[in-house]
Protein backbone atom coordinates (compact mmCIF):
# COMPACT_ATOMS: atom_id res chain seq x y z
CA UNK A 1 0.00 0.00 0.00
CA UNK A 2 2.89 2.33 0.73
CA UNK A 3 4.03 1.94 -2.86
CA UNK A 4 0.57 2.86 -4.11
CA UNK A 5 0.80 6.06 -2.11
CA UNK A 6 4.27 6.81 -3.48
CA UNK A 7 2.87 6.51 -6.99
CA UNK A 8 -0.26 8.49 -6.13
CA UNK A 9 1.83 11.25 -4.64
CA UNK A 10 3.92 11.70 -7.77
CA UNK A 11 0.79 11.59 -9.83
CA UNK A 12 -0.90 14.28 -7.72
CA UNK A 13 2.17 16.47 -7.95
CA UNK A 14 2.08 16.26 -11.69
CA UNK A 15 -1.66 17.07 -11.83
CA UNK A 16 -1.28 20.11 -9.65
CA UNK A 17 1.63 21.30 -11.77
CA UNK A 18 -0.30 21.01 -15.01
CA UNK A 19 -2.40 23.80 -16.50
CA UNK A 20 -5.08 21.28 -17.43
CA UNK A 21 -5.97 20.86 -13.78
CA UNK A 22 -6.51 24.58 -13.26
CA UNK A 23 -8.60 24.91 -16.38
CA UNK A 24 -10.76 21.99 -15.30
CA UNK A 25 -11.03 23.36 -11.77
CA UNK A 26 -12.12 26.76 -13.03
CA UNK A 27 -14.71 25.37 -15.41
CA UNK A 28 -16.00 22.96 -12.79
CA UNK A 29 -16.34 25.55 -10.05
CA UNK A 30 -17.84 28.06 -12.48
CA UNK A 31 -20.59 25.75 -13.68
CA UNK A 32 -21.21 24.31 -10.25
CA UNK A 33 -21.55 27.75 -8.69
CA UNK A 34 -23.85 28.92 -11.46
CA UNK A 35 -26.15 25.95 -11.04
CA UNK A 36 -26.19 26.16 -7.27
CA UNK A 37 -26.82 29.88 -7.42
CA UNK A 38 -29.84 29.33 -9.66
CA UNK A 39 -31.25 26.65 -7.42
CA UNK A 40 -30.74 28.87 -4.42
CA UNK A 41 -32.37 31.93 -5.94
CA UNK A 42 -35.34 29.88 -7.03
CA UNK A 43 -35.60 28.63 -3.48
CA UNK A 44 -35.51 32.14 -1.99
CA UNK A 45 -38.12 33.25 -4.49
CA UNK A 46 -40.34 30.47 -3.26
CA UNK A 47 -39.56 31.37 0.34
CA UNK A 48 -41.16 34.75 -0.21
CA UNK A 49 -44.30 32.99 -1.25
CA UNK A 50 -44.05 30.58 1.64
CA UNK A 51 -47.46 31.54 2.94
CA UNK A 52 -49.24 30.46 -0.22
CA UNK A 53 -47.28 27.26 -0.48
CA UNK A 54 -48.10 26.32 3.07
CA UNK A 55 -51.75 26.74 2.25
CA UNK A 56 -51.25 24.08 -0.44
CA UNK A 57 -49.93 21.75 2.26
CA UNK A 58 -46.23 21.84 1.30
CA UNK A 59 -43.22 22.73 3.38
CA UNK A 60 -39.97 24.21 2.24
CA UNK A 61 -36.88 22.25 3.05
CA UNK A 62 -33.35 23.49 2.23
CA UNK A 63 -31.93 20.00 2.17
CA UNK A 64 -34.48 18.71 -0.27
CA UNK A 65 -34.79 21.74 -2.46
CA UNK A 66 -31.28 23.14 -2.58
CA UNK A 67 -28.60 20.76 -1.44
CA UNK A 68 -29.98 17.58 -2.91
CA UNK A 69 -30.40 18.92 -6.46
CA UNK A 70 -27.01 20.64 -6.21
CA UNK A 71 -25.34 17.35 -5.39
CA UNK A 72 -27.06 15.56 -8.26
CA UNK A 73 -25.99 18.37 -10.57
CA UNK A 74 -22.47 18.03 -9.31
CA UNK A 75 -22.64 14.36 -10.27
CA UNK A 76 -23.38 15.44 -13.83
CA UNK A 77 -20.57 17.97 -14.00
CA UNK A 78 -18.15 15.46 -12.54
CA UNK A 79 -19.27 13.06 -15.24
CA UNK A 80 -18.09 15.58 -17.79
CA UNK A 81 -14.84 16.41 -16.02
CA UNK A 82 -13.57 13.08 -14.72
CA UNK A 83 -12.68 11.59 -18.13
CA UNK A 84 -10.32 14.54 -18.59
CA UNK A 85 -8.63 13.77 -15.29
CA UNK A 86 -8.41 10.00 -15.70
CA UNK A 87 -7.46 9.88 -19.37
CA UNK A 88 -3.76 10.30 -18.79
CA UNK A 89 -3.22 7.80 -16.00
CA UNK A 90 -1.92 4.88 -18.04
CA UNK A 91 -2.12 6.28 -21.56
CA UNK A 92 0.52 8.86 -20.80
CA UNK A 93 2.85 6.33 -19.19
CA UNK A 94 2.61 4.24 -22.33
CA UNK A 95 3.10 7.13 -24.72
CA UNK A 96 5.99 8.59 -22.75
CA UNK A 97 7.48 5.12 -22.35
CA UNK A 98 7.78 5.66 -18.62
CA UNK A 99 5.79 2.58 -17.70
CA UNK A 100 8.92 0.37 -17.55
CA UNK A 101 10.11 2.49 -14.63
CA UNK A 102 7.14 1.31 -12.58
CA UNK A 103 7.22 -2.21 -13.95
CA UNK A 104 10.92 -2.67 -13.20
CA UNK A 105 10.50 -1.45 -9.62
CA UNK A 106 9.72 -3.80 -6.76
CA UNK A 107 6.04 -2.88 -6.82
CA UNK A 108 2.99 -5.07 -7.37
CA UNK A 109 0.92 -4.33 -10.43
CA UNK A 110 -2.14 -3.83 -8.23
CA UNK A 111 -0.25 -1.18 -6.29
CA UNK A 112 0.31 0.70 -9.53
CA UNK A 113 -3.41 0.46 -10.34
CA UNK A 114 -4.34 1.55 -6.82
CA UNK A 115 -1.90 4.47 -6.99
CA UNK A 116 -3.46 5.76 -10.19
CA UNK A 117 -6.96 5.36 -8.80
CA UNK A 118 -6.14 7.16 -5.56
CA UNK A 119 -4.49 10.03 -7.44
CA UNK A 120 -7.42 10.63 -9.80
CA UNK A 121 -9.96 10.32 -7.03
CA UNK A 122 -7.83 12.68 -4.97
CA UNK A 123 -7.84 15.34 -7.69
CA UNK A 124 -11.59 15.09 -8.14
CA UNK A 125 -12.12 15.15 -4.37
CA UNK A 126 -10.23 18.42 -4.24
CA UNK A 127 -12.70 19.82 -6.78
CA UNK A 128 -15.67 18.50 -4.82
CA UNK A 129 -14.27 19.91 -1.61
CA UNK A 130 -13.66 23.29 -3.20
CA UNK A 131 -17.27 23.43 -4.37
CA UNK A 132 -18.54 22.83 -0.85
CA UNK A 133 -18.02 26.51 0.02
CA UNK A 134 -21.60 26.70 -1.14
CA UNK A 135 -22.74 24.43 1.69
CA UNK A 136 -20.82 26.61 4.09
CA UNK A 137 -22.79 29.57 2.80
CA UNK A 138 -26.11 27.82 3.38
CA UNK A 139 -24.98 26.80 6.84
CA UNK A 140 -24.21 30.42 7.59
CA UNK A 141 -27.59 31.79 6.53
CA UNK A 142 -29.92 28.87 7.18
CA UNK A 143 -30.22 25.76 9.22
CA UNK A 144 -30.07 22.67 7.03
CA UNK A 145 -29.71 19.19 8.48
CA UNK A 146 -26.03 18.19 8.61
CA UNK A 147 -26.55 14.42 8.29
CA UNK A 148 -27.91 14.32 4.73
CA UNK A 149 -25.21 16.75 3.62
CA UNK A 150 -22.45 14.47 4.83
CA UNK A 151 -23.99 11.32 3.41
CA UNK A 152 -24.75 13.18 0.20
CA UNK A 153 -21.11 14.11 -0.21
CA UNK A 154 -20.10 10.55 0.58
CA UNK A 155 -22.45 9.35 -2.17
CA UNK A 156 -21.03 11.82 -4.68
CA UNK A 157 -17.49 10.74 -3.85
CA UNK A 158 -18.41 7.08 -4.22
CA UNK A 159 -20.02 7.77 -7.57
CA UNK A 160 -16.92 9.72 -8.60
CA UNK A 161 -14.92 6.66 -7.57
CA UNK A 162 -16.93 4.69 -10.13
CA UNK A 163 -16.17 7.28 -12.82
CA UNK A 164 -12.50 7.09 -11.95
CA UNK A 165 -12.44 3.29 -11.97
CA UNK A 166 -13.91 3.28 -15.48
CA UNK A 167 -11.55 6.07 -16.53
CA UNK A 168 -8.45 4.30 -15.26
CA UNK A 169 -9.62 1.15 -16.98
CA UNK A 170 -10.16 2.94 -20.31
CA UNK A 171 -6.75 4.53 -19.98
CA UNK A 172 -5.11 1.14 -19.63
CA UNK A 173 -6.54 0.13 -23.00
CA UNK A 174 -4.81 2.69 -25.17
CA UNK A 175 -1.87 5.05 -25.31
CA UNK A 176 -4.15 7.69 -26.83
CA UNK A 177 -5.55 9.94 -24.13
CA UNK A 178 -8.39 11.24 -26.25
CA UNK A 179 -9.58 7.74 -27.05
CA UNK A 180 -9.44 6.91 -23.34
CA UNK A 181 -11.49 10.01 -22.48
CA UNK A 182 -14.16 9.25 -25.08
CA UNK A 183 -14.49 5.64 -23.96
CA UNK A 184 -14.78 6.78 -20.35
CA UNK A 185 -17.36 9.42 -21.09
CA UNK A 186 -19.46 7.11 -23.25
CA UNK A 187 -19.43 4.32 -20.74
CA UNK A 188 -20.05 6.40 -17.64
CA UNK A 189 -22.87 8.21 -19.40
CA UNK A 190 -24.42 4.91 -20.38
CA UNK A 191 -24.23 3.73 -16.79
CA UNK A 192 -26.06 6.90 -15.76
CA UNK A 193 -28.93 6.56 -18.15
CA UNK A 194 -29.18 2.80 -18.22
CA UNK A 195 -32.13 3.07 -15.86
CA UNK A 196 -34.14 4.77 -18.61
CA UNK A 197 -34.45 1.45 -20.36
CA UNK A 198 -35.99 -0.03 -17.22
CA UNK A 199 -39.53 1.15 -17.93
CA UNK A 200 -39.78 -0.57 -21.29
CA UNK A 201 -37.84 -3.69 -20.31
CA UNK A 202 -39.59 -6.58 -18.60
CA UNK A 203 -40.06 -6.72 -14.87
CA UNK A 204 -36.90 -8.55 -13.81
CA UNK A 205 -34.78 -7.00 -16.57
CA UNK A 206 -36.10 -3.63 -15.54
CA UNK A 207 -35.14 -4.20 -11.93
CA UNK A 208 -31.66 -5.23 -12.96
CA UNK A 209 -31.26 -2.18 -15.17
CA UNK A 210 -32.50 0.03 -12.38
CA UNK A 211 -30.03 -1.53 -10.01
CA UNK A 212 -27.16 -1.04 -12.47
CA UNK A 213 -27.81 2.64 -12.93
CA UNK A 214 -25.15 4.74 -11.24
CA UNK A 215 -27.38 7.63 -10.28
CA UNK A 216 -30.19 5.57 -8.76
CA UNK A 217 -27.92 4.69 -5.89
CA UNK A 218 -27.13 8.31 -5.18
CA UNK A 219 -30.67 9.21 -4.09
CA UNK A 220 -30.58 7.42 -0.75
CA UNK A 221 -27.29 9.06 0.10
CA UNK A 222 -28.56 12.55 -0.66
CA UNK A 223 -31.61 11.88 1.48
CA UNK A 224 -29.43 11.00 4.43
CA UNK A 225 -29.56 7.24 4.22
CA UNK A 226 -26.61 4.91 3.89
CA UNK A 227 -28.06 1.73 2.50
CA UNK A 228 -25.69 -1.25 2.39
CA UNK A 229 -27.07 -2.20 -1.00
CA UNK A 230 -25.97 1.18 -2.41
CA UNK A 231 -22.63 0.98 -0.68
CA UNK A 232 -22.07 -2.53 -1.99
CA UNK A 233 -23.02 -1.45 -5.46
CA UNK A 234 -20.52 1.43 -5.59
CA UNK A 235 -17.67 -0.45 -3.95
CA UNK A 236 -18.05 -3.55 -6.08
CA UNK A 237 -18.37 -1.38 -9.19
CA UNK A 238 -15.02 0.22 -8.35
CA UNK A 239 -13.39 -3.08 -7.45
CA UNK A 240 -14.62 -4.70 -10.64
CA UNK A 241 -13.17 -2.06 -12.94
CA UNK A 242 -9.88 -1.89 -11.06
CA UNK A 243 -9.67 -5.64 -11.39
CA UNK A 244 -10.29 -5.37 -15.13
CA UNK A 245 -7.56 -2.74 -15.34
CA UNK A 246 -5.19 -5.09 -13.57
CA UNK A 247 -6.01 -7.87 -16.00
CA UNK A 248 -5.60 -5.66 -19.05
CA UNK A 249 -2.20 -4.43 -17.91
CA UNK A 250 -1.11 -7.93 -17.13
CA UNK A 251 -2.21 -9.25 -20.49
CA UNK A 252 -0.56 -6.35 -22.32
CA UNK A 253 2.72 -7.60 -20.95
CA UNK A 254 2.20 -10.99 -22.51
CA UNK A 255 1.87 -9.54 -25.96
Amino acid at each position, binding site marked *: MKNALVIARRELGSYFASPLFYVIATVFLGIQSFMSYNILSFFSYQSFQEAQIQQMGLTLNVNEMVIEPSLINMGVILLLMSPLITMRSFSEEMRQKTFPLLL*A*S*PVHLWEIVAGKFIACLGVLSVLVLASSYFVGFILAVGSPEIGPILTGYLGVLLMTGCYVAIGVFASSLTDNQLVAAVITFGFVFLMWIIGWAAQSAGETAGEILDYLSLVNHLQNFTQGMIDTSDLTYYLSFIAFFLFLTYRVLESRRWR
Partner: protein
Amino acid sequence: MIEVENLTKSYGPRPAVDRLSFQVNSGEVVGFLGPNGAGKSTTMNILCCILPATSGTVKVHGFDVFENPLEVRKRIGYLPENPPLYPDMVVGDFLKFAARLRQVPSSKIKSSVDNVVEKCMLGDVKGRLIGRLSKGYQQRVGLAQAMVHDPAILVLDEPTIGLDPIQIIEIRKLIRDLGREHTILLSSHILPEVTQICQRVVIIHEGRIAAMDTLEGLTASLKKTQRLDLALRQGGDDVRSGLAELDCVISAAETSSGKFTLECHPGSHPQDEVARLVLDRGWGLDELRPVSLSLEDIFLQLTTEEKEVTA
Protein backbone atom coordinates in the same frame (compact mmCIF):
# COMPACT_ATOMS: atom_id res chain seq x y z
CA MET B 1 24.59 -13.57 -10.54
CA ILE B 2 22.49 -13.80 -13.67
CA GLU B 3 21.76 -17.23 -15.08
CA VAL B 4 19.81 -17.47 -18.30
CA GLU B 5 18.85 -20.91 -19.48
CA ASN B 6 17.13 -21.86 -22.71
CA LEU B 7 15.32 -18.56 -22.77
CA THR B 8 12.79 -18.26 -25.58
CA LYS B 9 10.45 -15.38 -26.29
CA SER B 10 8.09 -15.32 -29.24
CA TYR B 11 6.02 -12.44 -30.45
CA GLY B 12 3.62 -14.31 -32.66
CA PRO B 13 5.01 -17.37 -34.39
CA ARG B 14 8.62 -16.22 -34.86
CA PRO B 15 10.89 -16.30 -31.84
CA ALA B 16 12.62 -13.00 -31.09
CA VAL B 17 14.86 -14.78 -28.61
CA ASP B 18 15.58 -18.42 -29.28
CA ARG B 19 16.92 -20.79 -26.61
CA LEU B 20 19.38 -18.34 -25.19
CA SER B 21 21.70 -19.50 -22.42
CA PHE B 22 24.39 -17.45 -20.78
CA GLN B 23 25.65 -16.35 -17.40
CA VAL B 24 26.95 -13.21 -15.86
CA ASN B 25 29.16 -13.68 -12.83
CA SER B 26 29.43 -11.41 -9.86
CA GLY B 27 31.55 -8.33 -10.49
CA GLU B 28 31.74 -8.82 -14.25
CA VAL B 29 30.99 -6.24 -16.89
CA VAL B 30 29.47 -8.14 -19.76
CA GLY B 31 28.67 -6.72 -23.17
CA PHE B 32 25.58 -7.90 -24.97
CA LEU B 33 26.33 -7.31 -28.60
CA GLY B 34 24.13 -7.73 -31.62
CA PRO B 35 22.76 -5.93 -34.65
CA ASN B 36 19.34 -4.25 -34.67
CA GLY B 37 16.53 -6.64 -33.94
CA ALA B 38 18.83 -9.29 -32.49
CA GLY B 39 16.75 -9.56 -29.35
CA LYS B 40 18.89 -7.61 -26.89
CA SER B 41 16.13 -5.41 -25.53
CA THR B 42 13.73 -8.32 -25.38
CA THR B 43 16.19 -10.35 -23.30
CA MET B 44 16.85 -7.44 -20.97
CA ASN B 45 13.16 -6.79 -20.49
CA ILE B 46 12.67 -10.40 -19.47
CA LEU B 47 15.62 -10.18 -17.10
CA CYS B 48 14.09 -7.17 -15.39
CA CYS B 49 10.69 -8.89 -15.11
CA ILE B 50 8.97 -6.49 -17.47
CA LEU B 51 8.19 -9.09 -20.09
CA PRO B 52 7.33 -12.70 -19.33
CA ALA B 53 9.36 -15.33 -21.17
CA THR B 54 7.67 -17.85 -23.45
CA SER B 55 9.87 -20.61 -22.03
CA GLY B 56 13.15 -21.12 -20.27
CA THR B 57 14.38 -19.86 -16.93
CA VAL B 58 16.18 -16.76 -15.78
CA LYS B 59 17.61 -16.51 -12.30
CA VAL B 60 19.03 -13.42 -10.72
CA HIS B 61 20.84 -13.91 -7.41
CA GLY B 62 19.17 -17.29 -7.28
CA PHE B 63 15.67 -15.79 -7.58
CA ASP B 64 13.57 -16.87 -10.52
CA VAL B 65 12.22 -13.90 -12.49
CA PHE B 66 8.89 -15.58 -12.92
CA GLU B 67 8.36 -16.81 -9.37
CA ASN B 68 10.03 -14.04 -7.41
CA PRO B 69 9.88 -10.92 -9.55
CA LEU B 70 9.86 -8.52 -6.61
CA GLU B 71 13.08 -9.91 -5.16
CA VAL B 72 14.72 -9.74 -8.57
CA ARG B 73 13.59 -6.16 -9.17
CA LYS B 74 15.02 -5.05 -5.84
CA ARG B 75 18.44 -6.20 -6.94
CA ILE B 76 18.46 -4.84 -10.48
CA GLY B 77 18.76 -1.31 -11.74
CA TYR B 78 17.47 -1.03 -15.27
CA LEU B 79 18.04 1.61 -17.88
CA PRO B 80 15.68 0.72 -20.74
CA GLU B 81 16.34 1.63 -24.35
CA ASN B 82 14.16 4.74 -23.98
CA PRO B 83 15.04 6.19 -20.60
CA PRO B 84 11.79 6.29 -18.60
CA LEU B 85 11.67 9.94 -17.57
CA TYR B 86 8.71 12.15 -16.70
CA PRO B 87 9.38 15.35 -18.65
CA ASP B 88 7.26 17.45 -16.28
CA MET B 89 9.34 16.56 -13.23
CA VAL B 90 12.38 18.24 -11.75
CA VAL B 91 15.50 16.03 -11.77
CA GLY B 92 15.85 15.96 -7.97
CA ASP B 93 12.19 15.13 -7.36
CA PHE B 94 12.29 12.45 -9.99
CA LEU B 95 15.27 10.76 -8.39
CA LYS B 96 13.59 10.94 -4.99
CA PHE B 97 10.52 9.32 -6.50
CA ALA B 98 12.67 6.58 -8.04
CA ALA B 99 14.35 5.98 -4.67
CA ARG B 100 11.00 5.70 -2.86
CA LEU B 101 9.71 3.37 -5.53
CA ARG B 102 12.74 1.12 -4.96
CA GLN B 103 12.00 1.16 -1.24
CA VAL B 104 15.06 3.05 -0.12
CA PRO B 105 14.34 3.81 3.57
CA SER B 106 13.20 7.40 3.96
CA SER B 107 16.16 8.32 6.16
CA LYS B 108 18.53 7.38 3.33
CA ILE B 109 16.67 8.91 0.41
CA LYS B 110 18.46 12.21 0.51
CA SER B 111 21.92 10.70 0.75
CA SER B 112 21.31 8.16 -2.02
CA VAL B 113 19.96 10.85 -4.33
CA ASP B 114 22.93 13.10 -3.56
CA ASN B 115 25.22 10.19 -4.18
CA VAL B 116 23.90 9.40 -7.68
CA VAL B 117 23.70 13.08 -8.53
CA GLU B 118 27.37 13.32 -7.81
CA LYS B 119 28.29 10.11 -9.61
CA CYS B 120 26.33 11.00 -12.72
CA MET B 121 27.51 14.63 -12.60
CA LEU B 122 24.00 16.02 -12.40
CA GLY B 123 24.71 18.70 -9.81
CA ASP B 124 24.17 21.57 -12.23
CA VAL B 125 20.77 20.40 -13.43
CA LYS B 126 19.29 18.99 -10.23
CA GLY B 127 16.64 21.72 -10.08
CA ARG B 128 15.69 21.69 -13.75
CA LEU B 129 12.76 20.13 -15.56
CA ILE B 130 13.72 16.83 -17.17
CA GLY B 131 11.88 17.71 -20.38
CA ARG B 132 14.17 20.70 -20.88
CA LEU B 133 17.44 18.79 -20.54
CA SER B 134 19.63 17.80 -23.46
CA LYS B 135 19.59 14.16 -24.55
CA GLY B 136 22.92 13.50 -22.89
CA TYR B 137 21.77 14.82 -19.54
CA GLN B 138 18.53 12.89 -19.86
CA GLN B 139 20.55 9.75 -20.44
CA ARG B 140 22.47 10.48 -17.26
CA VAL B 141 19.26 10.99 -15.32
CA GLY B 142 18.16 7.63 -16.70
CA LEU B 143 21.36 6.09 -15.45
CA ALA B 144 20.98 7.82 -12.08
CA GLN B 145 17.46 6.43 -11.57
CA ALA B 146 18.75 2.94 -12.35
CA MET B 147 21.35 3.07 -9.59
CA VAL B 148 19.64 5.18 -6.96
CA HIS B 149 18.88 2.15 -4.79
CA ASP B 150 22.45 0.90 -5.14
CA PRO B 151 21.52 -2.38 -6.84
CA ALA B 152 24.01 -5.20 -7.15
CA ILE B 153 23.27 -5.52 -10.85
CA LEU B 154 22.90 -2.85 -13.49
CA VAL B 155 21.23 -3.66 -16.78
CA LEU B 156 21.86 -0.93 -19.33
CA ASP B 157 20.23 -1.05 -22.75
CA GLU B 158 22.30 0.93 -25.23
CA PRO B 159 23.35 3.60 -22.76
CA THR B 160 25.26 5.66 -25.31
CA ILE B 161 22.70 5.73 -28.09
CA GLY B 162 21.93 9.15 -29.50
CA LEU B 163 24.75 10.96 -27.75
CA ASP B 164 27.44 13.08 -29.30
CA PRO B 165 31.00 11.71 -29.26
CA ILE B 166 32.10 13.75 -26.26
CA GLN B 167 29.15 12.64 -24.18
CA ILE B 168 29.74 9.07 -25.32
CA ILE B 169 33.24 9.22 -23.92
CA GLU B 170 31.93 10.58 -20.61
CA ILE B 171 29.21 7.98 -20.24
CA ARG B 172 31.59 5.16 -21.10
CA LYS B 173 33.98 6.38 -18.48
CA LEU B 174 31.15 6.53 -15.99
CA ILE B 175 30.11 2.97 -16.76
CA ARG B 176 33.70 1.77 -16.43
CA ASP B 177 33.83 3.36 -12.99
CA LEU B 178 30.51 1.80 -12.02
CA GLY B 179 31.86 -1.57 -13.09
CA ARG B 180 34.14 -1.57 -10.06
CA GLU B 181 31.19 -1.73 -7.69
CA HIS B 182 28.40 -3.30 -9.71
CA THR B 183 27.82 -6.27 -11.94
CA ILE B 184 26.87 -4.81 -15.29
CA LEU B 185 25.15 -6.21 -18.35
CA LEU B 186 25.29 -3.68 -21.13
CA SER B 187 23.90 -3.93 -24.62
CA SER B 188 25.29 -2.29 -27.68
CA HIS B 189 25.58 -2.75 -31.38
CA ILE B 190 28.94 -1.09 -31.52
CA LEU B 191 31.89 -3.43 -31.18
CA PRO B 192 34.50 -0.86 -30.17
CA GLU B 193 32.28 0.33 -27.36
CA VAL B 194 32.10 -3.13 -25.92
CA THR B 195 35.82 -3.67 -26.28
CA GLN B 196 36.45 -0.57 -24.20
CA ILE B 197 34.03 -1.20 -21.37
CA CYS B 198 33.52 -4.92 -21.03
CA GLN B 199 35.55 -7.89 -19.96
CA ARG B 200 33.37 -10.42 -21.70
CA VAL B 201 31.02 -10.39 -24.66
CA VAL B 202 27.89 -12.28 -25.56
CA ILE B 203 27.14 -11.82 -29.22
CA ILE B 204 23.61 -12.59 -30.31
CA HIS B 205 22.12 -12.63 -33.74
CA GLU B 206 18.49 -13.28 -34.64
CA GLY B 207 17.78 -14.32 -31.09
CA ARG B 208 20.57 -16.87 -30.80
CA ILE B 209 23.98 -16.77 -29.28
CA ALA B 210 26.56 -16.46 -32.00
CA ALA B 211 29.54 -16.33 -29.68
CA MET B 212 30.37 -15.88 -26.06
CA ASP B 213 33.87 -15.39 -24.78
CA THR B 214 36.35 -12.96 -23.39
CA LEU B 215 37.46 -10.44 -25.96
CA GLU B 216 40.88 -12.03 -26.42
CA GLY B 217 39.41 -15.48 -26.74
CA LEU B 218 36.92 -14.25 -29.28
CA THR B 219 39.38 -12.58 -31.57
CA ALA B 220 41.67 -15.59 -31.38
CA SER B 221 38.99 -18.13 -32.24
CA LEU B 222 37.49 -15.89 -34.87
CA LYS B 223 40.16 -16.30 -37.47
CA LYS B 224 40.52 -20.03 -37.09
CA THR B 225 37.36 -21.75 -38.21
CA GLN B 226 34.40 -21.81 -40.47
CA ARG B 227 31.45 -23.94 -39.57
CA LEU B 228 29.39 -26.21 -41.86
CA ASP B 229 26.13 -27.98 -41.09
CA LEU B 230 25.80 -31.27 -42.91
CA ALA B 231 22.88 -33.70 -43.11
CA LEU B 232 23.42 -37.18 -44.56
CA ARG B 233 21.17 -40.17 -45.03
CA GLN B 234 23.78 -42.31 -43.34
CA GLY B 235 25.38 -41.70 -39.98
CA GLY B 236 27.77 -43.36 -37.62
CA ASP B 237 31.32 -43.18 -36.42
CA ASP B 238 33.05 -44.27 -39.62
CA VAL B 239 31.25 -41.53 -41.52
CA ARG B 240 32.32 -39.00 -38.93
CA SER B 241 35.95 -40.10 -38.99
CA GLY B 242 35.88 -40.13 -42.78
CA LEU B 243 34.80 -36.50 -42.73
CA ALA B 244 37.34 -35.60 -40.08
CA GLU B 245 40.16 -36.98 -42.22
CA LEU B 246 39.59 -34.37 -44.92
CA ASP B 247 42.40 -31.83 -45.08
CA CYS B 248 40.15 -28.83 -44.81
CA VAL B 249 38.24 -30.17 -41.78
CA ILE B 250 39.56 -29.49 -38.32
CA SER B 251 36.96 -31.45 -36.42
CA ALA B 252 33.68 -33.17 -37.07
CA ALA B 253 30.92 -33.84 -34.57
CA GLU B 254 27.71 -35.81 -35.03
CA THR B 255 24.93 -33.91 -33.30
CA SER B 256 22.22 -36.47 -34.06
CA SER B 257 22.08 -39.43 -36.40
CA GLY B 258 23.23 -38.27 -39.84
CA LYS B 259 23.63 -34.64 -38.76
CA PHE B 260 27.15 -33.29 -38.51
CA THR B 261 28.78 -30.05 -37.57
CA LEU B 262 32.17 -29.48 -39.17
CA GLU B 263 34.75 -26.96 -38.12
CA CYS B 264 36.83 -26.11 -41.17
CA HIS B 265 39.79 -23.98 -42.06
CA PRO B 266 38.40 -20.78 -43.45
CA GLY B 267 38.96 -19.60 -46.99
CA SER B 268 39.50 -23.12 -48.40
CA HIS B 269 35.97 -23.62 -49.79
CA PRO B 270 35.50 -26.75 -47.70
CA GLN B 271 32.01 -27.30 -49.16
CA ASP B 272 33.54 -28.63 -52.43
CA GLU B 273 35.70 -31.23 -50.75
CA VAL B 274 33.03 -32.33 -48.29
CA ALA B 275 30.47 -32.77 -51.07
CA ARG B 276 32.92 -34.70 -53.25
CA LEU B 277 33.74 -37.09 -50.41
CA VAL B 278 30.09 -37.66 -49.54
CA LEU B 279 29.16 -38.40 -53.16
CA ASP B 280 32.16 -40.67 -53.70
CA ARG B 281 31.28 -42.78 -50.68
CA GLY B 282 27.54 -42.75 -51.46
CA TRP B 283 26.50 -41.47 -48.01
CA GLY B 284 23.51 -39.60 -49.42
CA LEU B 285 23.78 -35.82 -49.29
CA ASP B 286 20.65 -34.17 -47.89
CA GLU B 287 21.96 -30.80 -46.84
CA LEU B 288 25.20 -28.89 -46.76
CA ARG B 289 25.39 -25.29 -45.72
CA PRO B 290 27.70 -22.90 -44.05
CA VAL B 291 26.22 -21.75 -40.72
CA SER B 292 24.16 -18.81 -41.85
CA LEU B 293 26.25 -15.98 -40.50
CA SER B 294 29.73 -16.74 -39.39
CA LEU B 295 31.15 -14.77 -36.53
CA GLU B 296 33.19 -12.90 -39.03
CA ASP B 297 30.12 -11.73 -40.88
CA ILE B 298 28.50 -10.63 -37.67
CA PHE B 299 31.60 -8.83 -36.59
CA LEU B 300 31.79 -7.19 -39.96
CA GLN B 301 28.22 -6.02 -39.60
CA LEU B 302 28.89 -4.78 -36.10
CA THR B 303 32.14 -3.07 -36.86
CA THR B 304 31.01 -1.31 -40.01
CA GLU B 305 28.12 0.28 -38.13
CA GLU B 306 29.20 3.58 -36.63
CA LYS B 307 32.81 2.70 -37.20
CA GLU B 308 33.80 6.32 -36.84
CA VAL B 309 32.97 6.28 -33.17
CA THR B 310 36.06 4.71 -31.75
CA ALA B 311 36.79 7.09 -28.94
